[in-house]
């Protein structure tokens, strides 16, 4: 009998502890699948953030380092500069990479740091209970924008991926969602391309993954998926945002 589906070797055998309907588990499984496919588990080092995303270190069977909130890309820089032949990735939420860690995000991209960042965008601060994030949509109600996000007061939802596109050092940037089978398939391809951009020393790579947060959005998992597709995707458009071909572009 031929095995057509199994648990990725890189995924530790224990149940995900994320809320029902959250896509963290799905995103982490896809990363694990790609690590298996590229056979890089032995040489990969993950860097965790602070926030719901941090739990990735409990589920992926690779070495992990976790520092402070927003600092994952600085920590990853330190690791990569020490060990240039390892594969180093960070896995961060929108508060971590888009608010408190914005300086790090811009500068790893600009330096062409040879790391890969996965950015889970669920439009709220999840772990602290649903406050406004930099990616919260206009009109979206959160615990700290109870009347809805108002551009005059709170500014606009941050399109970090597009911002990082203009950095000369970024080589591959994509935004994906995991709400449909074909989208999951595309996401897996993007994750693979992002790792390859690092391995082939093309420069910094980032995959933004839109994820529902039914708990903090106050929706059923089903409604949350619908809301993501109807509200988030039109603003945070899916697809490959930057694919830089050609010679080595990353920092050594």
């Amino acid at each position, binding site marked *: 009998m031929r095995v057509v589906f199994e648990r990725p070797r890189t995924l530790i055998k224990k149940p995900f502890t994320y809320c029902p309907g959250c896509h963290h588990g799905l995103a982490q499984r896809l990363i694990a699948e790609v690590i298996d496919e590229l056979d890089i*588990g*032995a*040489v*990969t*080092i993950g*860097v*965790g953030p602070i926030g719901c995303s941090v739990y990735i*270190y409990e589920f992926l*069977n*690779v*070495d*992990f*380092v*976790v*520092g*402070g909130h927003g*600092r994952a890309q*600085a*920590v*990853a*820089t*330190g*690791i*990569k*500069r*020490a*060990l240039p032949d*390892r*594969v180093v990735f960070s896995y961060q939420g929108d508060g971590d990479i888009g608010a408190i860690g914005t*300086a*790090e995000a*811009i*500068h790893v991209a600009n330096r062409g740091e040879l790391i890969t960042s996965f950015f889970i965008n669920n439009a709220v601060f999840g772990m602290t209970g649903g406050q406004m994030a930099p990616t919260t949509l206009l009109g979206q109600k959160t615990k700290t924008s109870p009347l809805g996000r108002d551009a005059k007061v709170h500014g606009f939802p941050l399109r970090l991926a597009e911002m990082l596109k203009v950095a000369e050092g970024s080589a591959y940037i994509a935004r994906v969602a995991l709400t449909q089978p074909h989208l999951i398939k595309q996401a897996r391809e993007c994750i693979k391309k992002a790792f390859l951009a690092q391995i082939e020393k093309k420069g910094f790579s980032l995959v933004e993954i839109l994820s529902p947060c039914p708990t903090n959005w106050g929706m059923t998992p089903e409604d949350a998926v619908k809301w993501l597709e109807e509200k988030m995707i039109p603003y945070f458009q899916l697809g490959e945002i930057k694919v830089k071909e050609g010679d080595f572009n990353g920092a050594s």
Partner: protein
Amino acid sequence: MEKILMKGNEALAEAAVRAGCRMYFGYPITPQTEISEYLSLRLPQVGGVFLQAETEVAAINMVYGASATGMRVMTSSSGPGISLKQEGLSALAIAELPCVVVNMVRGGPGVGNIQPAQSDYFQAVKGGGHGDYKVIVLAPSSVQELVDFTYRAFYLADKYCNPVIILGDGMLAQMMEPVIFAEPDFPPLPPKDWIIQGKGRGERKFIVCFALDPQKLEELNLKLQRKYRLMEEQETDFEVLGEDDAELLLVGFGTVGRILKTVVREGKKEGIKCALFRPITLFPFPYGQLKEEARRVGRVLVVEMNLGQMVEDVRLAVEGIVPVFFHGRTGGMIPKVEEILEKARQILRNEVYHESRF
């Protein structure tokens, strides 16, 4: 061995390379920028990495990542920059990651100015970050000690898996003195079996800066405290100087410790009998040894380039058994030998009745 005339910052940077430091992350700030400048050229020569970070915060977190891989790594800054690094220092302490952090102190608070000061005693010794953690703090008082203590700092960091701060000041950083670079000579250290390098064929490892279970965090904090007690037993260091019949014990660290040596010498000429107690490790602080000296001499004058920080630890050490007087200058003003002598004369003539602060 050959003596070389070197500026404090550059001597320290060269000592770091000789101590095996191969990675440096920093952000320019006066009066320590020559450390970065020197290492930007020197580290690549020995296969090392110099990276100028986008912020002080990023720099200390790059240190965190590099340290997790087992590399000897350093960052340096001055007052306001060290304030920004406190988040990272707290994380390095709980994650038990070794590193060396240099603080060439300038006047504070706020941006203050770029002149020499000792106003960062509290933020170095008491832990400017949050939580029950400690970092070893070494206080050099000459360019030669900048070299020797840099060697020692890397050794102690690895020995205890803990950050070590070298607390200098703008004076030490900027002045030139002849120095000797001896070979670093320390007992062998245990292998770093905790480092993160990718799991290879073995079990995976991880390093984090938290313990979400309260019982586990308490256990971890108590384990850290046992480590700090061990530092107190094994690493406490100080210098004592002066006659047995001294009537006044001068206490000062770093640059002030050096000025006080002149005070002891000059005082002797006019019959003012002083001894000097210079703490070399500010954490661990030599409480017991200082208490003994204070009891023996009878009166204590603490001199600092701040408005009274270490004096609090001196009073803790002395436990009220003898009076403790204080003389401080701030804002980049350096206490002069004559003004300290005048204070000493007043104390010995019983003209200072209060344990004055200034």
